[in-house]
């Protein structure tokens, strides 16, 4: 077994960067001004000027570089080892993405550059929207939202605007109990009441449960497909019909798109709105917690409500269109997380349609391989085949006298980032494992072995 360095026995005695300052120590290098700096304080009202030192660090460049280099060593990333955090799609972040995103023509471009001088950026965004539409089966995509939850917020606003345009914004949104926390929170932000829908004993939603909950005050159902248990909502067609018949819309949380690219498309299933997580499915780095990007795709009927600005192609030119009277307005300043889009675009262009499909196939294969490897050791709460991630409960752990958390923490000592734990809430002591397509079979085997060996420790040396 490979052991990644730094995953156990972390020494974290590095001081904080703002501790131990020596007055006057410098880490900066600034150009001379062409205006008179010495006159500035006299030009500004005294009452507005800073009265006290700020309290910023006083450090030389070597110290700062060393400090953050050392700090980084106390982190586990995909680059140091497997990171099977379920629901997060911690796949490899291609290096070419980083090179391309740093090209000065992208990185040093002001958002208010006249449109004739930023055609490259607009073209990239326009094409990226088209690709996402093709992948998901929607009529139109906006790239503005900054992350998945922000996309949910945008999608729900669009749903509300749609209902308002029909004369009644409606009051409720149906959200399955297995949903990610952002789903109810996003619904609430638009003033909707969240009605929880219970998952069936097979881990998916029974259309009858939806039928029972639906009424003319239901604005939408917010479904995740494949859901957070890693299961495909096979009843999706029926659910869509039920909700549509009641005049409601269907929102799909697209965080799990990594399992179905090139295999099926939510748009084809009658879903009305979906958010993408470019930082999951499309390989852009998670950055220790962002930046992400959460584009939203909608069916044709909802297109008028998309946020402004929207990119259009007029003849050979790409333009940002602000004049969209039914739009929900702006959800973020400028056009979204462009730097993230460049990476996702690059990824799609490298993978092509075939590559994306292969990614999904291999992601699902890897999850099922882990499932097969551990199904006798851990308890599988659902019998249905898994998609890109597999969830186990703590049923067998309890018998060994350990908890899900114990297992997770012990995995760290084996050089693995733990899976997502205690989520989804509907599985007791859940362990949600998402290996992604970029881990080798050897690593998958090592992970399975590590879990087995931890269980064995619990058995033999409780």
């Amino acid at each position: 077994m490979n052991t990644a360095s730094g995953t156990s026995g972390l020494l974290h005695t590095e001081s904080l960067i703002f501790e131990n300052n020596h007055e006057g120590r410098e880490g900066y290098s600034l150009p001379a001004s062409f205006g008179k700096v010495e006159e500035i304080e006299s030009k500004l009202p005294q009452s507005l000027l800073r009265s006290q030192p700020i309290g910023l660090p006083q450090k030389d460049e070597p110290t700062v570089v060393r400090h953050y280099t050392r700090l980084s060593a106390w982190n586990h990333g995909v680059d140091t080892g497997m990171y099977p955090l379920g629901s997060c799609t911690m796949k490899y972040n291609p290096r070419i993405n980083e090179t391309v995103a740093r090209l000065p023509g992208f990185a040093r471009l002001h958002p208010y550059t006249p449109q004739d001088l930023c055609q490259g950026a607009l073209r990239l965004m326009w094409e990226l929207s088209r690709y996402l539409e093709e992948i998901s089966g929607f009529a139109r995509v906006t790239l503005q939202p900054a992350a998945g939850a922000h996309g949910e917020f945008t999608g729900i606003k669009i749903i509300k605007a749609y209902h308002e345009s029909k004369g009644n914004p409606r009051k409720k949104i149906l959200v399955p109990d297995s949903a990610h926390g952002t789903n109810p929170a996003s619904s609430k932000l638009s003033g909707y009441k969240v009605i929880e829908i219970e998952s069936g004993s097979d881990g998916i939603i029974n259309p009858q449960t939806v039928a029972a909950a639906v009424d003319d005050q239901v604005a939408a159902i917010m479904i995740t497909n494949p859901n957070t248990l890693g299961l495909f909502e096979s009843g999706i067609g029926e659910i869509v019909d039920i909700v549509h018949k009641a005049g409601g819309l269907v929102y799909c949380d697209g965080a799990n798109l990594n399992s179905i690219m090139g295999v099926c498309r939510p748009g084809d299933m009658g879903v009305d709105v979906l958010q993408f997580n470019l930082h999951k499915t499309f390989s852009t780095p998670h950055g220790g917690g962002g930046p992400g990007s959460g584009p939203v795709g909608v069916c044709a009927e909802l297109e008028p409500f998309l946020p402004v600005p929207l990119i259009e192609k007029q003849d050979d030119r790409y333009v940002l269109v602000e004049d969209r009277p039914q739009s929900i307005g702006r959800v973020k300043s400028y056009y979204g997380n462009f730097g993230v889009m460049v990476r996702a675009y690059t990824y799609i262009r490298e993978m092509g349609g075939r590559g994306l499909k292969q990614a999904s196939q291999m992601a699902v294969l890897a999850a099922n391989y882990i499932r097969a490897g551990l199904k006798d050791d851990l308890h599988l709460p659902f019998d249905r085949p898994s998609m890109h991630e597999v969830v186990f409960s703590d049923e067998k752990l309890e018998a060994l006298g350990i908890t899900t958390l114990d297992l997770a923490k012990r995995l760290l000592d084996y050089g693995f980032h733990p899976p997502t734990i205690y989520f989804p809430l509907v599985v007791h002591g859940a362990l949600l494992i998402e290996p992604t397509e970029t881990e080798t079979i050897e690593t998958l085997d090592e992970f399975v072995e590590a879990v087995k060996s931890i269980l064995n420790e619990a058995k033999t040396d409780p």
Partner: protein
Amino acid sequence: MRYIPHTKEDIRGMLGAIGIRDVDELFNTIPSEYRLSSALNLPDGLDEPTLIIELQKMAQANRGSADNMALFLGAGAYHHHIPAAVDQLLLRGEFFTAYTPYQPEASQGTLQAIFEYQSIMAALTGCEVVNASMYDGATATAEALLMAGRLKKKRPRCLLPRTVHPEVRDVCATYLSDADLVIEQVAYGEFGQTDLDALAGSLSDDVAAVVIQQPNFFGCLEDLPKIIEMTHQAGALLIAVVLEPVSLGLLEAPGVIGADIVTGEAMGLGTGLNFGGPGLGLFATSMKNAWHMPGRLVGQTTDQDGKRGFVLTMSTREQHIRRARATSNICTNEGLCALAAAIYLSLMGEGGFKKLAGINAANAQETRKRLGRVKGVEPRFDAPFFNEFVVKLNQDVDQALDKLKARGVLGGLPLGRYYPELADCLLVCVTETNNSEQVDRFASGLEG
């Protein structure tokens, strides 16, 4: 495919272990009517060298990038030099390939860095608590208004002067469209600042919050101490919005003079323009309001052995625990940009950051002076300003900008789009990245 390691033999082995014969069987739970029969209609995959050339072409098609042209655009997105060390540290895989630090044992690097970001930003804003970041300045401000609404439940109005960035106002409008808080505008006065009489007229005991951007959208400095006093007298909260945090090298920290919430946009501190995103939404407030704050927070703690460590804290505010009753729906934030800001500010340091602010202000003063010497160009507002100001032209603004473009100058933002009454005005920003020659080119371009 270089990112997917599975060989035919690997796949055979995995299928065997699972007990199926074909990858397609894995997708049997997807009803067949939804299974795609044809391939996605996307361009064929490209190899790395070709792809880089292709993207280089697209990047070069952005002829207005700061590498090609003299940039006098600010308006919420400020171009500052990023030290080489910042970006090279951001490229460390341990940082950028990690996610939200859910597992503290495996995330002390991210956690400590975010804690440092929070602490440094707290010093800069004069606030006690800073969260781990929001999407950008606009959404941070919108969330601040939602928070004000929670804190001041009985007050249904909030005041958003026209001196606040139009896009920030737009985003607030979207966020608040379904909240119990109505946004009202406040006019600006002849000097380019929020009209204090109008503000006084609007303030009353049903106002939950007043938003003030400092420096404001026109680059003018507001009389923040006075406005805070007025706001507090009316029992409302003051939300100070700082879209150009470099100004804080020179200006008093809003928290110190009583701002209740400080929001802002910190992409200028190490992240860079990137056509406007990712941003770095700053969110700061006082300890007593911390439980109402959106977003993640890293706190300091001590482990079993008494060693200092860092963890995510006050999580019960958040959506993954509190779901519909969370203070916000935010999950993924702008972690790497916060790290960039921490590194950037550590390098700038106390001395450098103040110096940087001085250079920006001095260059802007000098530029305004030189442009003012051109016939037919005059300053539009007389309020003191930091690194941005408005000039009025006696020629057609769009034509003037076109002439400047031809000389390689992006001469500021035409204001007519946002303020019809300022259709003859340009918003001009000057930072340490501009130089004297560029200003002369700008001035002579306005002449010719």
